[in-house]
């Protein structure tokens, strides 16, 4: 799985970044002013991985964060890692080449990770179908219960009416008399009733018998109804309790935020109880919900006349049919296991010590100063404890010397800076033993580290901050790359902030070296940490309202840099200078990059002849291979641009490259990239052969190959000939009427493509 895009919502200054694609070549650079939200993005990604957040990430409305990441996977991989997915889910998984995971936080700061995107849409559709089914059954069931209650009520009414009739016949008749009256063995009292009364009584008796009979038949359903009411009440009660607990949690968060106290450190038994109640109530609610749903389905089958046993089996079958064994949460947890490790580089947390006991390394004593850096060093040197068990100290010392040379050479591939005029720095280590003066440690082995130049040998702590940072960084990166079994996403906030410009460029080189194994996302202000030839790596981060630090963060991808503020773009403009706004590049028009000057002339002629009024400025590249550089330049200057490519092999390959690295999504492709029909190998193929001969070549010989192929085979001065055509058009020597129907049709085709650009 490779991280390819992210979306962060409700995290610090970020309301919603929208989906942002990372650079396909594994290095993404976030630029922006201070307080723009760059670090928040890195922290958001780390939180996605670790699941932890603190109060200070909450926005003022206390809305809870939601962070989504999209990963590229090989087609078919999802079916391999998902056991028994079911036919429909299997079909869906087999065609997917990306998977989205979303982490949501709850008021207690616990979080859940779920699949989102197409998989969750499918699972939701199953849930919806189940929900619709249940709603239908529930509606019938409730009607049934209501009917039963009506019957029961009617029976009570009938009893009252009967009693009334008897009392009229014998005002002294007590309850017992009334009831005995209806036993046929009792005579006398009935005879005292009038004909009408007797008739009414009989009617009532008949009705009561009928209702009782009906109710007897509905006894099972009535029982189910009682159970249903009970479950419903319990669920409502649990939900009420959960809402109350949520409010309490919110108040606590607000209080902790004001007090600047992290919630984990807060030791309040009442708070602990609230948290525990909240978590238990959530679990309880889910259980009750599931039981209720199952009961409704069960009751539905009872209403059809099924026995309890049959209804139970049918309910299980229905749940299997409607509900997948997998929920968004189950799949989310499953796929999350395969996610790359996300590591935030801690600036000075792993400095190389001057000295470390070998015993501390062997026992993994992380509390010892410099342990992490020493461990990284040994990882790079591919050493473990057994290396130091060499009985011959001479051989051991030789091995150490050989190793020191190798390690230093690797490091110097990246560290180009010298100390002094011509010196280069070297890292060395030595194995030695404590002398008697060290008391308990006497005779015990330790490793000592040196940073040497040809002038002197100094302990790491005696070196400059910049050297120590770079050393630490280099070793952390390289060792992580060597150690990890899973891919790594490395987050680096302002790398090399204390490094000289050249050293910062060295940092970029390290990134290039490791990018095949480690995906890097870093923030920077420095122009030396931006590769001008690879503007597709840039994401610009700025506030929506540049004058208001409280406004939300906005992220702009490389194609939207035209909307970025000058301050945001300052690292780019420091290297690239300001754009030249003359006849060429334009800030208020779309700059259309074409393959060379010949095409520039012909397109200009077409625009003139057709009278096209679109706000387009044609920018000729020197050659097809220079087009990516042109794109970088225009992106760096924050200018709107698009690229027009023709059907020849070179340009078709370039189109694929641009789609993959620059434009990244299909929507962006159509907005920024035009690739003509493959029949037009180059611009001159837009002319019919006859018009090409008449207006460009001014010859009459027969031509049976494409115009562009003819130009190439005859090695004709293309730019000159097409510039002559432009000149003739501008002078009015050639007009729209001088081109034939085929040429005009091609011109219209091209203009339609230009109109299609945004």
């Amino acid at each position, binding site marked *: 799985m490779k991280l390819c895009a992210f979306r962060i919502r409700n995290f610090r200054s970020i309301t919603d970044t929208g989906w942002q694609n990372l650079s396909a070549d594994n290095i993404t650079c976030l630029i922006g002013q201070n307080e723009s939200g760059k670090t928040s993005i890195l922290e958001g990604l780390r939180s996605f991985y670790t699941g932890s957040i603190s109060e200070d990430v909450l926005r003022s409305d206390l809305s809870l964060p939601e962070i989504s990441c999209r990963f590229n996977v090989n087609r078919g991989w999802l079916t391999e890692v998902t056991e028994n997915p079911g036919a429909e889910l299997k079909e869906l998984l087999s065609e997917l080449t990306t998977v989205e995971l979303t982490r949501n936080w709850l008021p207690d700061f616990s979080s859940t990770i779920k699949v989102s995107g197409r998989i969750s849409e499918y699972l939701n559709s199953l849930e919806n179908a189940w929900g619709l089914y249940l709603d239908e059954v529930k509606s019938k069931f409730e009607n049934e219960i209501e009917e039963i209650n009506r019957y029961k009520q009617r029976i009570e009414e009938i009893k009252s009416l009967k009693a009334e009739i008897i009392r009229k016949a014998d005002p002294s008749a007590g309850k017992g008399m009334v009831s005995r009256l209806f036993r046929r063995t009792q005579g006398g009292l009935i005879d005292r009733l009038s004909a009408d009364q007797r008739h009414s009584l009989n009617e009532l008796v008949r009705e009561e018998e009928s209702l009782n009979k009906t109710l007897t038949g509905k006894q099972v359903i009535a029982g189910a109804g009682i159970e249903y009411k009970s479950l419903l009440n319990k669920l409502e009660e649990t939900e009420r309790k959960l809402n109350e607990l949520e409010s309490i949690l919110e108040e606590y968060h607000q209080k902790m935020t004001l007090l600047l106290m992290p919630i984990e450190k807060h030791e309040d038994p009442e708070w602990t109880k609230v948290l525990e109640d909240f978590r238990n109530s959530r679990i309880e609610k889910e259980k009750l919900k599931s039981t209720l749903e199952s009961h409704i389905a069960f009751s539905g089958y009872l209403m059809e006349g099924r026995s309890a046993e049959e209804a139970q089996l049918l309910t299980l079958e229905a749940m299997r049919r409607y509900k997948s064994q997998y929920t968004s949460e189950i799949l989310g947890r499953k796929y999350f296991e395969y996610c790359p490790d996300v590591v935030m580089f801690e600036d000075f947390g792993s400095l190389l010590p001057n000295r470390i006991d070998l015993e501390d390394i062997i026992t993994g004593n992380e509390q010892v100063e410099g342990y992490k850096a020493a461990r990284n060093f040994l990882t790079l040197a591919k050493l473990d404890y057994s290396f130091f068990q060499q009985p011959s100290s001479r051989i051991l010392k030789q091995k150490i010397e050989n190793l020191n040379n190798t390690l230093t050479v690797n490091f110097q591939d990246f560290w180009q800076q010298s100390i002094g005029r011509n010196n280069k720095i070297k890292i060395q280590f030595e194995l030695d033993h404590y002398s008697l003066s060290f008391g308990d440690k006497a005779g015990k082995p330790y490793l000592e580290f040196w940073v040497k130049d040809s002038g002197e040998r100094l302990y790491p702590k005696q070196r400059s901050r910049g050297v120590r940072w770079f050393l630490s960084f280099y070793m952390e990166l390289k060792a992580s790359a060597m150690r990890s079994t899973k891919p790594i996403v490395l987050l680096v906030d302002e790398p090399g902030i204390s490094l000289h410009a050249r050293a910062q460029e060295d940092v970029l080189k390290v990134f290039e070296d490791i990018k095949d194994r480690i995906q890097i996302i870093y923030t920077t202000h420095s122009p030396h940490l931006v590769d001008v030839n690879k503007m597709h790596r840039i994401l610009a981060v700025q506030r929506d309202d540049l004058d208001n630090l409280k406004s939300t963060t906005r992220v702009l991808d490389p194609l939207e840099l035209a909307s970025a503020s000058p301050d945001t773009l300052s690292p780019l403009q420091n290297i690239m200078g300001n754009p030249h706004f003359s006849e060429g590049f334009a800030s208020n028009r779309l700059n259309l990059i074409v393959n060379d000057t010949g095409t520039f002339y012909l397109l200009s002629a077409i625009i003139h002849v057709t009278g096209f009024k679109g706000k387009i400025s044609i920018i000729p590249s020197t050659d097809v291979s220079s087009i990516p550089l042109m794109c970088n330049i225009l992106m760096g200057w924050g200018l709107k641009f698009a690229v027009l490519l023709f059907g020849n092999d070179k340009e078709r390959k370039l189109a694929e490259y641009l789609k993959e690295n620059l434009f990244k999504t299909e929507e962006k492709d159509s907005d920024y990239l035009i690739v003509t029909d493959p029949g037009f190998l180059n611009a001159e193929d837009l002319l019919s052969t*006859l018009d090409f001969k008449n207006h460009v070549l001014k010859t*009459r010989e027969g031509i049976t190959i494409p115009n562009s192929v003819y130009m190439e085979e005859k090695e004709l001065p293309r730019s000159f000939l097409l510039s002559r055509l432009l000149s003739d058009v501008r002078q009015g020597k050639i007009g729209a009427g001088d081109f034939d129907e085929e040429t005009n049709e091609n011109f219209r085709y091209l203009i339609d493509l230009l109109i299609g650009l945004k």
Partner: protein
Amino acid sequence: MRGVSSYQQYMPEKAELQAFDEHLSSLRYAGMIQHALMPDEETLAGILRDYFILFLPRDIVSGDFYYAFSNRDYLCIAAGDCTGHGVPGALLSILGISFLNEILQAEKCMKANRVLNMMRERIMKALHQTGEKSGTKDSIDIALCIINQKTGEMQYAGANRPLVMIRNGELTEYKPDLMTIGLAPVEERAFKNNYLNTQKGDLFYLFSDGFPDQFGEKTNKKLKNKNFRKILENASSYTGMKDQKKYLENTFLEWRGNMPQVDDVLILGFKL
């Protein structure tokens, strides 16, 4: 015997006779090859349900040719007239047929005018025609029809050859571009495309100029286009296309009488 000896001096030598026979034999063979390149009865019957072809080469081989091609979507019919007749015309007709095959079977373009444009490029390239004085001036005149089999829409483009349509006895002539397929006296222009809406029962005729250019025995003058159109109108009154062919052939022979045939004669008629 004076008569016999004077007669004998005009008799060709045996060797010359033999050479003449061999030459004739080659021409006949060439004629067979040329005929083989044109669509046969079976092919035409598969393409055009109701048609006739009146093909009267002046010599053994002909400068006129007819062509037919169809695919799932389109039906293409053409009648061509190459400069000259006899062997030179026949050789040019072979070029014409093969270029039409090349263009139409590539299926890149199914617009009649563009087919003629492309054919012209090929002819000019094959004959090295660049407009300079040393180049050849040979060319092909042709009428090409392309019918969309789904919609029934017909396209017509003509290089000096018209298309005649007769609908319910009424004749309409579609004029060609006055340009030939090959080097023209003036700079080449694109051929125009004509779109016709067809109806069932419409009659179409493509033809070379051999028939109208024929001198009649009785008048010693050319028939001319106007009279030819009247003959076509009369022919159209026959329901069967075979009968139309018979009528046209008889009319031609009757008109020609003992006069020598001046040019190849080709009339391709079909009914939708």
